[in-house]
């Protein structure tokens, strides 16, 4: 297993290196440092101010090759910064990017973690019940409801949710965010409910299919024949044996809890990392965007690795070799 992990880590590093090179090409070769400086300082900025700004951000060095000092290039700086998590400063307002990440992480997690946990509970619970009651009125209703939930755009959920739950029924603030413990639940309730409505349908259908598939296997009948109760069969056999695909689905999502929910954060004014990414896009803050793309890639690769490890925990038959 260690050899397998070492190989996977090596591949992951190679993939990450490729991502970093791609980022460099996109952000430093397509848009020149002068363009970026002008975006930050405005059209009227004096050449001296542009030169100083470029020097402050390390954009004044040769981009790829420096004969005099091969390590003193923007490419080397770019790789070093990302690998050492020394992300530098925002192109838009000079704030250290690490400070922005720290500030945005809390609001993002306060939205994505409950959304994730409640989503898992709701979709597995519904799917397990529907699978057990296959063909029943409850199962058919769940199927129809899930297809309906899947078919509607998240934006419509947001608009309708804000209108019905915030404006008409007056249950929740229609938008906004306040991290004060006494009121934070008020602000998160609506986006979490909307996120649940948007995600639960697809997950429930997927898990139901897995449970049905598992229920039809021989060993389930054997378990019944040996006297196991239906609850034991569903929980100990069906649920446990479908854990691998469920884990694949879930573990891969965990890293992205840290990058925030872009659409929900933007619409509800939650100052998380998703909203920060949108802000960086709108404000031509290429330094922040680079970091967010890099972190997204890093987390995705980490998620893949975690999924592999989770397989061995969920199913002792799986050996990573």
């Amino acid at each position: 297993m260690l050899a397998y992990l070492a190989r996977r880590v090596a591949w992951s590093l190679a993939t990450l290196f490729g991502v970093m090179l791609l980022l460099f090409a996109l952000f430093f070769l397509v848009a020149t440092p002068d363009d970026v400086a002008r975006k930050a300082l405005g059209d009227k900025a004096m050449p001296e101010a542009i030169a100083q700004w470029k020097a402050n951000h390390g954009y004044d060095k040769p981009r790829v090759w420096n004969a005099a000092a091969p390590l003193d290039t923007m490419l080397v700086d770019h790789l070093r910064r990302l690998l050492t998590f020394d992300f530098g400063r925002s192109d838009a307002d000079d704030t250290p990017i690490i400070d922005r990440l720290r500030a945005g992480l809390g609001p993002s997690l306060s939205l994505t973690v409950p959304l994730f946990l409640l989503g898992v509970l709701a979709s597995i619970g519904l799917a397990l019940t529907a699978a057990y009651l296959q063909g029943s009125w409850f199962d058919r209703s769940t199927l129809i409801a899930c297809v309906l939930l899947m078919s509607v755009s998240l934006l419509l959920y947001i608009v309708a949710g804000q209108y019905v739950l915030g404006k008409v029924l007056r249950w929740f603030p229609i938008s906004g965010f306040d991290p004060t413990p006494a009121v934070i639940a008020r602000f998160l309730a609506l986006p979490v409910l909307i996120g649940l409505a948007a995600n639960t349908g697809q997950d429930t259908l997927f898990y139901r299919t897995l449970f049905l598939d598992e229920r039809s296997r021989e060993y389930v009948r054997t378990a019944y024949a040996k006297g196991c109760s239906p609850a034991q069969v569903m929980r100990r056999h069906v649920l446990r044996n479908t854990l691998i695909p469920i884990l694949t689905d879930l573990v891969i999502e965990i890293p992205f809890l840290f990058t925030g929910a872009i659409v929900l954060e933007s619409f509800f004014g939650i100052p998380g990392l998703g909203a920060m990414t949108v802000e960086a896009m709108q404000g031509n803050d290429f330094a922040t965007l680079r970091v967010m793309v890099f972190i997204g890639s890093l987390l995705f690769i980490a998620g893949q690795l975690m999924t592999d490890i989770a397989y061995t925990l969920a199913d002792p038959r799986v050996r990573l070799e």
Partner: protein
Amino acid sequence: MIRRRRATFHRLTRLSVVRMAVPLLVLGLGGGCTNNPYPDADETAKVLYVAFSSPPKTLDPQVSYTVIDHAVTGNVFDTLLEYAYLERPYRLIPALAAAVPQAQPRADGRVAYRFTLRADALYQRDACFGIDGSGRTTRPVAAADIAFSLARIADPLVGSPVVDTFERLHGFKEFSQRLLAARNADAAFAALRPDQQYARVGGIDGVRVLDAQTVEVELDAPYPQILYWFAMPFTAPMAWEAVATYDGRNGRDNLADHPVGAGPFRLARYDRLSRIVLARNDDWYGIRHPEWQAPGAVYPSTGEPGDAADGLLAAAGRPLPFLERIEFRRDPEQVPAFIKFMQGYYDTAPILRESFDRLVHAGALAPEQVARGMELEKTITAGVYYLGFNMDDATVGGAAGEPGRALRQAMSLAVDADEFLRLFANGRGLAAQSPLPPGIFGYDPSYRNPWRVADPAAAAARLVDAGYPGGIDPKTGKPLRLTFDVYDTSARGLLQFQFFVEAWKRIGLDVQVAASDYNRFQEKVRSGAYQVFLWGWVADYPDPENFLFLLYGPMSRTASGGPNTANFADPRYDALFLRMRAMENGPERLALIDEMQRILEREAPWIPVYYPEDYALQFGWLANVKTPSLSLPYYKYLDLAPAPRAARRAEWNHPIRWPAVALLAALVAAGGIASRRRRAGEVAS
């Protein structure tokens, strides 16, 4: 077996229902069940709630330029001068300065203004003032701080957007060059604190600190409008300690996020993407010295006719500010922000286009909204939207001579501004006759530009004079083809542009819209590759110069990158502009402005379309609101009554709980029905 399955089913059904119900219960009833976005403790406080959509770019007063930037900096940084809150036309009054200075002409043609600062005006408390180890937390505002602010504007590394204006200060450019040269020549110099660098290179020659309270600024030539710039945050006093401390290094804050001012409010909280809180600054001179009765520190007792009837003079003579706190809450989308306003959670809001017809009937608030205590505040903005012609163009420009002039006049006659406003702005705005909007010296409400009457027949006749009868270009035998360059590619934007295209089509012209993004459009304008365009301008200060300079020849966009986007150049106009610019308001200046407007009328480099009008909504619990047509800080004048606000909020936002109960009941019933059916099926089998 059957019994066991039934038990399992019941358990599963219960579990599922419980799993669905728990989040709903927790989120729907337990976690929230109120749409109040604020802590209950604030119900009784004088806290003003305002929405903002885009976060501030910077809170450095010498750099900040956007509306939300100024909403913060304008209230945190006091300026030397400010505008009389209720008076129109605008009049400057002293703020941190003891008096509005008079121009002092010098023998060499220069003009000086001497500002005397109020003694004992303190900065807000901040740790930066202990930079010298003294442990102090504030200090008086000094004349040297004004010199420091002006030097920061000149410093290329600060990146102030108003360098062009202050180049009129004697020695401004030279200071900037000396500073750069010293930084380039000596790394040790470049590592010094900014204030030390400025001192080493000798400061700006035309800015002289005469004593702790007196500073004199000297201009190379008369420019009376300079005083308006001392009513803007750009020239607000900046403490060198703040600049030296908040450099963003080693964990220290960035100056752009940490303003240290001497205004009526201080920044109490700054979550750039969600919440900005300004709290009353108890160290402000107006609060510490109410006995001074300083004009900027007490509510005015004079205003325009009608202000008294509107209740705007009820607070006359009372010390400012009235509010304890101002809470800016971020709402990136307009609709949720407006709904929160309607729920009473924002105290004021711009009117939402989609709700306009429901709220406003015939220019007045709908009766049901009046009954809710809502009020409508209308303000013509000190701005103008215009269709411009590239006067360098061979067909529509000055080179085309009389035919070109006739073509521009014909195109002007074809455009119905009132119809445009009706279709696209819910009638909010005033059809423009000239570049000067209401409230600006020189604006004449009775003036009618003969080419700004919508008259297709006259337009067609003028096209004949232009040599394009029926719009036909004799060279091609087809309708004259022109390009309408625009920078808005949205569907709504294109619809607006199509309005003008259709108007010109009706007189036979073939005008094609060339839409591009703003950067590409700017490039086209810089390179002179355009014919007709739509642009707008909102004034920085209430002076006709700030509008008429948009057509001053030497400021041509293509030739010099200046604001004259039409590249209009008329020697008579330019000469009149220079004379007008150097004058104080008076009959002589008015005569010059009239003459300039006659030139613009005849040459028609612009089709002035409209002066935009803001419709702002507020509730009756907010008092003393008179929205300025310029972007000015005015929160210190506002007052509000928390008790009626709290009562209205409670009345309007009582949660409707029965759907949650019904939903839960439905879920339980669904589980029960499924259970019974399943049981029946199992028994049958």
